[in-house]
């Protein structure tokens, strides 16, 4: 009986695999999210293999060929005011922009997830203390605080992104705490306690998986915000320092020649816009495919 055999095989699939399979089945239908993922993969890959794709050394100046239009003199996307190749610099700047965004998000996760879990699960006084601190941090406008810190510690992208990460952390605390609170109410947590499952395993097996979906979405959205923050700070000259460049600092540099050489601002601007958009679209797509509404038919 072929039907039974099929079912039998389905039953032998490992649970992890079928959970992933279900996610992919839904995610594959999200065309915009797939395009966004593709774009991000392209950007990341290009940053990694930048030396192979570059047409010029990134810092090489050619004062005899400044402000060349795209396509001229072998400059694919033109050259800047010091005769550096915009295409090559954009490749290398992408590295810095991505790493900076990743750094801020990593700091935010590191500082946000565990306190959120603890606050949500422990409740009472622990929760109050953690949440008051969180509220305090949330009072600061991110960019202003970052500017203040950089003013004190000296302009450096690492400092700036660390501060951005600290300021993003409360979002993660609140998100994780909120999810934990709603999960903790569920009978299956009490069921797990009644079984005698140790607390750490209750958190690992029941709480974390149920918190993961909103967390992944939030990571994607936070990456977009971190990237914008990096661009803003670098545009203000408070982020990456010359001769290195990020997309934000390229705009800052090219900004003075907007009329004469618009490509200096348009291309990095386009890269920032597309990448930030991609993170946002990916976040939405993830939310829709990780969502639990289908599981909660009742």
């Amino acid at each position, binding site marked *: 009986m072929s039907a039974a055999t099929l*079912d*039998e095989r*389905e*039953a032998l*699939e490992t*649970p992890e695999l*079928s*959970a992933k399979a279900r996610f992919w089945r839904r995610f594959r239908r999200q065309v915009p999210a797939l395009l966004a993922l593709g774009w991000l993969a392209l950007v990341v890959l290009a940053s990694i293999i930048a030396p192979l794709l570059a047409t010029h050394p990134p810092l090489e100046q050619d004062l005899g060929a400044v402000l060349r239009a795209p396509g001229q003199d072998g400059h694919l996307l033109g050259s800047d005011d010091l005769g550096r190749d915009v295409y090559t610099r954009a490749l290398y700047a992408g590295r810095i922009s991505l790493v900076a965004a990743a750094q801020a998000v990593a700091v935010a996760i590191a500082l946000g997830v565990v306190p959120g879990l603890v606050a949500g699960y422990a409740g009472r006084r622990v929760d109050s203390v953690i949440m008051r601190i969180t509220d305090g941090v949330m009072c600061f406008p991110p960019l202003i605080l970052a500017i203040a810190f950089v003013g004190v510690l000296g302009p450096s992208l690492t400092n700036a992104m660390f501060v951005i990460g600290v300021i993003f952390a409360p979002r993660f605390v609140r998100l994780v705490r909120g999810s934990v609170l709603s999960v903790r109410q*569920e*009978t*299956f947590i*009490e*069921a*797990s*306690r*009644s*079984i*005698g*499952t*140790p607390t750490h*395993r209750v958190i690992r*097996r*029941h709480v974390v*998986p*149920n918190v993961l979906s909103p967390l992944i979405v939030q990571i994607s959205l936070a990456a977009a915000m971190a990237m914008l923050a990096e661009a803003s700070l670098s545009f203000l000259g408070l982020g990456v320092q010359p001769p290195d460049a990020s997309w934000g600092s390229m705009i800052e540099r090219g900004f003075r020649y907007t009329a004469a050489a618009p490509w200096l601002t348009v291309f990095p601007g386009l890269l920032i816009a597309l990448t930030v958009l991609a993170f946002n679209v990916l976040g939405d797509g993830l939310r829709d495919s990780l969502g*639990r509404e*289908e*599981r*909660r*038919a*009742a």
Partner: protein
Amino acid sequence: MTPPADRPAVPLRKPGAAVADPPVPVAEVEGLDVEFRLRRGPLGGTVPLRAVRGVDLSIGERETVGLVGESGSGKSTTGRALLRLIEPTGGRIRLDGQDITALRGEALRGVRRKMQMVFQDPYSSLDPAMVVAESIAEPLDTHLDLTREQRTARLAELMEHVGLSRRHLNRYPYEFSGGQRQRIAIARAVAVNPRLVVCDEAVSALDVSTQNQILNLLEDIQAEFGISYLFIAHDLAVVRHIAQRVAVMYLGEIVETGPIDRLFDQPAHPYTEALLSAVPLPSPRRQRERERIVLTGEMPDATNPPPGCSFHTRCPYAMDVCRVEVPAETPVEGGGSVRCHLRG
């Protein structure tokens, strides 16, 4: 109370005494108190709410004891305190003669193997992010050290015991009906051969035909595994179907206990009488002719229970003494006991 270690391995009997010592009940609760502190007022002052007051209960080997009462009567709290899911504020809980009232940490987790629970809502008692196999395996993974093959075999065996197929093991809860989910929850509860299973309104969320299937399943499992049940329900018809003895709770106290037939045919407490008169009778003629006792008013505020008998505010037979004096527990002819001045 005597820890089990002090109990002689062979029970000592007085020469010539009857053969049977009363057997050690599987679960025994003595003077159980549970008090919650409710936060009230802007200054965060707390008000005590005694949800369970001096409850005595014992459940024998392979016995099903029904625990009935209105919502808010403390029956679920009693069940949860018995399983140490809620901290009792007073009284003793014994499981197989072992005092578990004060156990903590590792020791408490150890005895949890012997007592499991089936919850009311089969939609929320299973983790939606886990396949059925993972849910049922949770007690196995916590309490037993099984090899992969043993684990798989046990899971398949459990599924078949509850009338499902091993092919369902890798499905998610949302793919099942309420009745099927309750079967899964039962499989999880009996996975490690517990001595006691507390069924908290285990069939209330199901439709009537499914209720019967689940009740029969619970009975089959009891016969097979020798489990005792504390069956918490508000539906007396369901309790009559499955229980051998019943305890009736009102405002945190047990007002009457007794064997199922005596309690249903000759209720001794006016509250039990009122509860029973609310059960629809199968015959329309008898239903019409029956005198229905409709209780007036609501259950009193549990933070401020009335003095004397807690039922006097709604009791049709309330006397002066009821408003002053707490009725003592009195044995009832035909088995069980009652707390009522009418029978004192």
